[in-house]
């Protein structure tokens, strides 16, 4: 992991979300599903955000402005600087034969980069509204569902599922695809194993998502 101060190249609206693009500096883009700790201006703690896209010499993060930290990230201006630490955690295993990307809401964040690395495999993404669904444009070949239709209503069988989304979605995906790779989410203070804050209980075991995840095999 490496920590650098990077400058904002662009901060673009994507539906209700924001795509924050920063100069990459000397930071490695890592594997899809890995995440970065982004300094949130005016806040004590950085925020864990997975990499959405890795354009040349840039890192791009899709952010949902739902709290004080993410709102401050979404209001950064071009030229502003922020500390970025990463890449962190374990990303998706890309050695899959028949990949299907599955995402829900802001959980689609790592899928554009994942899609690129897997040469644009089929994808199913779900959103709560048409406006949120505008973010699907970031993912090629995405089949889009808007509530009340759920991604689990349309997932075909027999594919290698790589999924990221809210916990109920991951639980439902897992029931359909027991071998799925699932990217989980939890509040984190540090992102590198120091705080023990991001522990989640999965099958009776408490795992630190930042070092043992965030991508875990369902089984």
């Amino acid at each position, binding site marked *: *992991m490496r*920590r650098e101060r990077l400058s904002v190249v662009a901060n673009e609206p994507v539906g209700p979300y924001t795509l924050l693009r920063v100069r990459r500096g000397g930071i490695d883009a890592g594997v899809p599903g890995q995440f970065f*700790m982004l*300094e949130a201006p005016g*806040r*004590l*703690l*950085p925020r864990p955000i997975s990499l959405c896209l890795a354009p040349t010499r840039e890192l791009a993060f899709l952010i949902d402005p739902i709290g*004080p*930290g993410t709102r401050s990230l979404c209001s950064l201006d071009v030229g502003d600087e922020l*500390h970025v*630490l990463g890449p962190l955690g374990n990303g998706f295993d890309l050695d899959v034969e028949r990949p299907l990307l599955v995402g829900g809401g802001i959980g689609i964040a790592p899928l554009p980069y994942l899609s690129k690395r897997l040469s644009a495999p089929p994808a199913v993404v779900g959103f709560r509204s048409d406006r949120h669904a505008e973010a699907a444009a970031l993912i090629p070949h995405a089949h889009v569902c808007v509530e009340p239709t759920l991604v689990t209503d349309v997932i075909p069988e027999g594919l290698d599922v790589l999924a990221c989304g809210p916990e109920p979605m991951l639980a439902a995906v897992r029931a359909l695809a027991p071998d799925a790779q699932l990217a989980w989410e*939890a*509040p*984190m*203070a*540090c992102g*590198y*194993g*120091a*705080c*023990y*804050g*991001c*522990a*989640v*209980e999965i099958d009776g075991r*408490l795992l630190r998502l930042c*070092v043992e995840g965030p991508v875990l095999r369902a089984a």
Partner: protein
Amino acid sequence: MLLNASGCLDALAAPAVARGLDAFVTKTVTPLPRDGNTPVRIAETDFGMLNSIGLANPGIDRFLTSYLPQLELLGVPLWVSVGGFETNDYAEIALRLDDYPSVSAIELNVSCPNVDTPAESAAEIVAAARLATRKPLWAKLSPAVPDIAEVACAAQGAGADGLSLVNTIRGLKLDEQTLRPVLGPGQGGLSGPALKPIALAAVATCYRATALPIVGMGGIRTGLDALEFVAAGARHVAVGTTLFADPDAPARIRMELHAAARDRGWNTYEDAYAAAHEESLSLRTT
């Protein structure tokens, strides 16, 4: 010396960060393994953060067989933080650590806000551990007591070699929408900048009340913060919450500490030791 606050760094997950310290303080070890508290376990507040980790640790057996040998490879002096639910727990672990030359010191966590506090007083725990080990014993105290000087003096009388000041204090954060507690267990320990004035007061009070060396901690983010702790009477300082935001903090704070001391006319930061008390000192000597 610059240390980490216990529970704020996993030296095995981030060895380079640990090597930047003068000593690494482990997460608190208890007699039996503990998973810790139910998530959610952390929450940012306006001027700090709450944690309710709940002493998650592998227990003393696995700590000694699996963790300590790896920590020894870091080449950094090791302080082991010890916790428990009764006096015997502390004494038992202190006794077992006594055989390990790689353990430089033992910090007695008698003040975790996230588990049931031992009914016995800090002094009783120190006294029991004192009988069990020759290692230096540092008592980590809570500032959330009516008279911390009294607790510190009692710990000194019981055989403590130093004081770690301070542990977090209990706080509550409610979800803005539901008005329910954000943390799984409800409440948690408050750390970060909000704690700094409270910690400084505890350091200054215990400096005046005892002759014990003090590790000062609580909201240190910059070298100037650290210098304030030294001026209040801390021989050593520790960084906690700031490590979460900045794993490079030890090197940065060390540099800033030297610069902040020089900017204020001291050759080294050690010369600023207890400078906050100098007025009363000069009054006494004139």
